[in-house]
């Protein structure tokens, strides 16, 4: 059984429910800059970092394309391969915009992932605490925060 790991405990039950219902193989919940606050199915920190960076990059690129065609940014993207699909969904928590990267196999479908993604977002919004007051972002703080997040995501 693959682990679900969260930086903040409130995110665990919604994520576990989503994984159970959608049969997702890998999930990352992160900020648009790629800072992960919950994951399921990954066993290596380097894979999490790579996937987060690439996912955030894809969303940023397609966001620019949306701007070019004068559309609001796309709410969801799906890439379908021969055996797996990758779904990227945007959503908003009290603290701000977020992204979900979901990898699913032949035992699921983009329809199921989208269906239960809507429930996941509702659950996360309901469970999320109010945002902490903003503080200036220092490069050192960012590095420390990132390292702490990754450490938590791989600790039992």
């Amino acid at each position: 059984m693959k682990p679900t790991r969260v930086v903040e405990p409130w995110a665990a039950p919604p994520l576990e429910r989503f994984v159970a219902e959608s049969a997702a193989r890998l999930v990352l919940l992160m900020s648009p800059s790629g800072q992960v606050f919950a994951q399921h199915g990954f066993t290596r920190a380097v894979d999490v970092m790579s996937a987060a960076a690439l996912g955030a990059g894809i969303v940023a690129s397609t966001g620019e394309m949306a701007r070019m065609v004068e559309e609001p940014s796309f709410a969801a993207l799906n890439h379908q391969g021969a055996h797996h699909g990758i779904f990227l969904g945007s959503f908003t928590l009290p603290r701000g915009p977020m992204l979900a990267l979901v990898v699913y196999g032949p035992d699921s479908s983009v329809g199921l992932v989208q269906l239960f993604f809507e429930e996941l977002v509702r659950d996360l919004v309901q469970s999320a605490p109010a945002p902490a007051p903003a503080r200036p972002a220092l490069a050192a703080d960012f590095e420390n925060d990132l390292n702490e997040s990754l450490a938590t995501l791989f600790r039992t």
Partner: protein
Amino acid sequence: MVDDLHALRAELARDPESLVFLRLGEMLRVAGEPDAAARVTLDGLHRHPHLADAHDLYARILADVGDLERAGDEWSTALSLAPRHGGAHKGLGFLAFRQRDFEAALEHLELALASDPSDPTVVQALHTVRQAFEDRMAAPPASASIGAARQAFGGLEGAEDGLLLVDPQGLVMAGRIAVGGVDQGEIVAAYLAGASQEAARTARLIGLGDWTAILAEGPAGHVHIAPPTPAALLLVRRDRSVPPGRLQIVAERAADAARSWLEEAAR
């Protein structure tokens, strides 16, 4: 491969608590370095004693070096932590097969299949075990499954073939579904569990209430699937000559028989 090993070792050295030991241990095992694999895995187990995947990995390392008894212990521990762990069921299925306990092997492999229906190694293992089982039972057809089918469905049309009673975990309780003369009950049972879970979820989420039956019409016949009790599933198969309305009646009679048999068995 060597670069990957270095990278994983470096990652583990940077963060000994990380779960990367699973990947490193597996890579060392596959590279034919069981001692190194065991060291990494045991260290990881010391830090994560309740991680079923780690027990599964250690079991596979032990099986590689021939320590099957301890491998079995580790897979059993994995199951106690995660009862649906596919790897542990696969491992215990392998051990049972080696001991010629084909029924136990089939049980474990069916559960492994239910855990991951897309794993081709499990499907192949099931085929191998079934073949060995059929070879051993070379004198058909009076098998245990027919005996149980007669008990559960005695007197009903198709009592010896075409009726299958299954528990929610996808294990056969009674009945037989023969295809080409070979009983496919275990495979059908594993798929049935998934179908009934999906039926329950679908009915709940789109406002159909509680699901009561599934009817599927195929090119070579029809199947009717229903829960005669909350803890059982019944599949009735008939060829195309039986109209759906008649199939419904047959299914209701079979459900009554199944309920009586289950109540009797529970006493």
